């Protein structure tokens, strides 16, 4: 209940990925006010990093941009990007949420997103968004069509914060929006229901000793390959290997890296890697016709609509070689990356000296998912995925009324299932508001 016991019919969505966006748009269209809190400077989440999406291979940017623009311009949706939830109190109908608005060191009111500061900024560091495949500036927006199109300064990369030198962006900014003294600000939002859609992360490739602890430069993970393949990525879509940016002719893809491995990593299946790896192999073949792709797998899991046909088409038309077996070791040997695998169908040990290896690493919850759950008072499983109250018949509700979960925060799923899951959460919120 609000101050005077009124049920606050305002929703908060934590996480601005495709799930958060879908839920917010549904609630906004339903006439309810939505506060969308996103940790990164702009919304779009993981999908922003993708090049194309399976099974139709339509480009992720083109399908996502209408959604992010719609969210950005939606009269009922209030965007709080570059912000994190600090504290949550109250109950359904009257949650008081304290939000930390991280210092962007750019005054977003003044800034009109002209992009001059990003062009002129001298510092070059491996960009986290590009998974280390390219260099990013200290002052950056995640993509040219970011929503909101407001840059932020990353203090750990910025020369001014590190050595008190430079200040180029301040000089160049036509509207004087740069403000190095900016501090984190706290705001409080009063909402009646919360949807947690904080998405997922990948197991860092550095955790795989048998695959070189991340030190073999040409062993990259799936998201890095997406960046290589993306037209707005560091290599403008050309598949070039990080060590010497040559075009690889022998590419090995390894499924279940860290997934289905109860003894050493994660016991669960990350569900989407079979599909995106097949997509990677096909997109690679579209760009490098004389290249050869190998996919080490155990069980190919293509269960969605049109997925099985997508995989079979890849095998038949693009000559992708599927080898049933795990890879035991990868090490660098001069120019080449040696892969020790097996084909259990012929029982033969398989050794490939590849140019590049792409690991389909396991999906894990975001690092801060567990303590966000603590703040909200909801349960998570041992890995940090948020626990739904009943697996079969109530997949979006938690055991606290008014708090719902959506998307990969609950467990690995592809975009279609994440959107449906998020819409379901939006439905529960609309039902809650309609009943009070």
């Amino acid at each position: 209940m609000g101050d005077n016991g009124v049920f606050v019919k305002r929703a908060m969505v934590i996480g601005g990925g495709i799930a958060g966006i879908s839920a917010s748009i549904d609630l906004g269209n339903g006439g309810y006010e939505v506060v969308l809190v996103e940790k990164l400077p702009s919304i779009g989440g993981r999908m922003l990093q993708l090049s194309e999406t399976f099974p139709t291979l339509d480009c992720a940017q083109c399908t996502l941009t209408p959604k992010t623009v719609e969210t950005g311009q939606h009269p009922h949706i209030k965007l709080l990007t570059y912000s994190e939830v600090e504290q949550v109190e109250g109950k359904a109908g009257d949650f008081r949420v304290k939000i930390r608005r991280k210092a962007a060191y750019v005054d977003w009111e003044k800034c009109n997103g002209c992009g001059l500061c990003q062009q002129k900024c001298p510092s070059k560091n491996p960009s986290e968004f590009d998974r280390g495949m390219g260099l990013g500036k200290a002052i950056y927006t995640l993509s040219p069509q970011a929503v909101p199109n407001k840059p932020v300064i990353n203090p750990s990369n910025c020369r001014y914060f590190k050595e008190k030198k430079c200040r180029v962006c301040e000089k160049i900014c036509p509207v004087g929006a740069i403000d190095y003294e900016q501090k984190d600000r706290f705001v409080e939002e009063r909402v009646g229901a919360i949807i947690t859609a904080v998405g997922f992360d990948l197991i860092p490739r550095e955790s795989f000793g048998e695959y070189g602890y991340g030190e073999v430069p040409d062993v990259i993970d799936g998201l890095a390959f997406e960046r290589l393949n993306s037209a707005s990525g560091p290599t403008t879509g050309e598949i070039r290997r990080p060590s010497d940016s040559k075009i690889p002719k022998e590419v090995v893809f390894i499924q279940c890296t860290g997934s289905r491995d109860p003894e050493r990593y994660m016991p669960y299946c990350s569900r989407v890697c079979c599909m995106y790896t097949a997509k990677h192999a096909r997109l690679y073949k579209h760009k490098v016709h004389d290249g050869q792709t190998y996919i080490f797998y155990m069980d190919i899991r293509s269960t969605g609509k049109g997925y099985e046909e997508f995989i079979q088409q890849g095998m038949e038309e693009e000559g992708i070689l599927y080898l049933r077996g795990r890879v035991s070791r990868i090490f660098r040997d001069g120019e080449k990356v040696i892969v020790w695998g097996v084909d259990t169908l012929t029982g033969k040990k398989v050794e490939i000296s590849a140019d590049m290896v792409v690991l389909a690493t396991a999906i894990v919850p975001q690092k801060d998912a567990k303590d966000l759950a603590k703040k909200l008072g909801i349960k998570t499983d041992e890995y940090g995925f948020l626990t739904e109250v009943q697996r079969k018949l109530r997949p979006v509700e938690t055991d606290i009324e008014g708090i719902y979960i959506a998307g990969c925060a609950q467990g690995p799923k592809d975009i279609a299932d994440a959107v449906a899951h998020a819409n379901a959460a939006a439905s529960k919120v609309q039902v809650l508001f309609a009943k009070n």
Partner: protein
Amino acid sequence: MKRLGVFICHCGANIAGTVDVKSVAEKIGKTEDVAHSADYIYMCSEPGQQIIREAIRGKGLDGVVVACCSPSMHENTFRKAVKSQGMNPYLCEIANIREQCSWVHQKEKEEATRKAEEIIQATLEKVRRNDSLEAIAVAINRRVLVVGGGIAGITASLDLAEGGYEVILLEREPALGGHMAQLSRTFPDLDPAFSGLFLKASEVERHPKIHLHCYSELEDVKGYVGNFELVIRKKATSVDRGRCTGCGICIENCPVEYVSQFERGMGIRKAIDTLYPSSVPNKPVIYREHCRYFIDGSCHRCEEVCPEKAIDFKQEDERISEKVGAVVVATGYELYPKEQLGEYGYGEIPDVIDGLGFERMLSPNGPTKGKIIRPSDGKVPKEMVFIQCVASRDPDRYMPYCSRICCMVTAKHAKIYKEQVPDGQPYIFYMDIRSDCKGYEEFLQKTIEEKRLLYLRGRVSRVFQDDGRVRVLGVDTLTGKMVEVAADMVVLATAIVPSNGVKDLAAKLRATVDRHGFLTEAHIKLYPVESSTKGIYLAGCGQSPKDISDTVSQASATASKIQALLSTDKLLQDPLIAFVDEEICSGCGICVEICPYEAREMDPHRGISMVHSALCQGCGACIASCPNNACELRNGSASQVLRMVDTFVS
């Protein structure tokens, strides 16, 4: 003369990579009525739209052409941007120079640039003669039709009813539950399927806002989103459901027994019976094709014994008409009939049953009360073979797609079997084990280890009867050995196919289905629960095979979309519809028959054809068929189109 603005998008490298955008912008800028010509890397982004807004305010534009990607991507994004500056949105047109130019002419850069310029010039021709139009506001009916009473229909109805909307729930069978009512337990937690379902189904039966019509089908649909007119045929149950208390005396006394389809051919039902024991609603129905009264009038037993006099042989089918604003299609699935599987015995081998058959066997209220026995001689099977991917993943003989749930169902079956028959041995022939959802992989590995299930990676080529046993010819590709099992019983995990009758239901609703009969969603990734026809929503296996938790998610998702749709009292529709030039129209009426949306009507007094502005979808069939060109499309008149053609050919 209008002051026009042209805004050309690079679309990253998609357009600028082929079309010389700068030179096109410059050349177009020289046209005399083009007051402003600009280009930007991503016109659809926030700064891109800012350029358009400032140009309209600064230069007082009264017409805009945006040269970018296909109108289906960003047409209403730019129309909203234009509207925010007070300009009529329908004076803004899209020139598609990506899909129709840069993407298809990547190797001919000069010609592509020239073609892009011509496309923009043609669109300018159109804008010059566009008039300002207002969107048509249409009243909305705030009730919802849900077709299908399985777990998908139940979930959608409950969400919508709890959200305050009236729901009409149609179920073809005499009771709710769909295939979930046939299940024994659900994976991966093995909780009983029936208890969860019973709870939800009774909630539906009691809910004041849900009007439940069992044993009924949708006969006809007219209208459009917000205003659908339905005709529902309530088949005669020959039982007065008001009076009947569900005591079951009639069922006990009925002399006629026949093999029940619900029990998958392993159990019997009476001529008067409920769909399943303690069904929801717990009211029986007389199946006229089995009832002796209807065959030769030789029996009245149920009428005689019924304490409430609820039997009414004279009852006829009833037709009800309703008006709703949105429709949820939750028609569920059927299993591929094992009778059509030659290599597995054409369904003639009694001990070869399908997944749902085994579920009935495991159900406490099933034909064998949960005991696993061989249908042929009632003995407990010790050699139990499960075969995955039967008619699934089989492009050239059966279904090419994967039915998604059979791996988990079979693992559950094998586990329950091992619990009931500890010294029995389950063999599972599989190709890829697909246990990808939350907790599924752990359930599967734990079951295999603890119950010591033998997973043989390979397909089964043939199954045939051989001296009282079922010979299974399979293979284990991991040892490369042919594998033969003399099985006591075989369970086939047959493919999921759309339930029969979905094709013509979809035709009535003007929703599209794919070649297998699954309903097609608007966009596989971003609009998975909406059909391409506005106002029609899809939930559950009718759209594609999925398990119960995904079905429930999808059902709630449709409820969310509909609550959002019906939250506004007025629905805005595009005004780009047909109109009639009343002087020329001779009232011949050809357009009335030709209109697929029944949007044309003859005005009886004046003898001229009229257009229902809310119904017309602007498809142009009437315009093409009108003998004396009395009919035109708003902002798409023949003269406009001809002028656009001229810019290309001259």
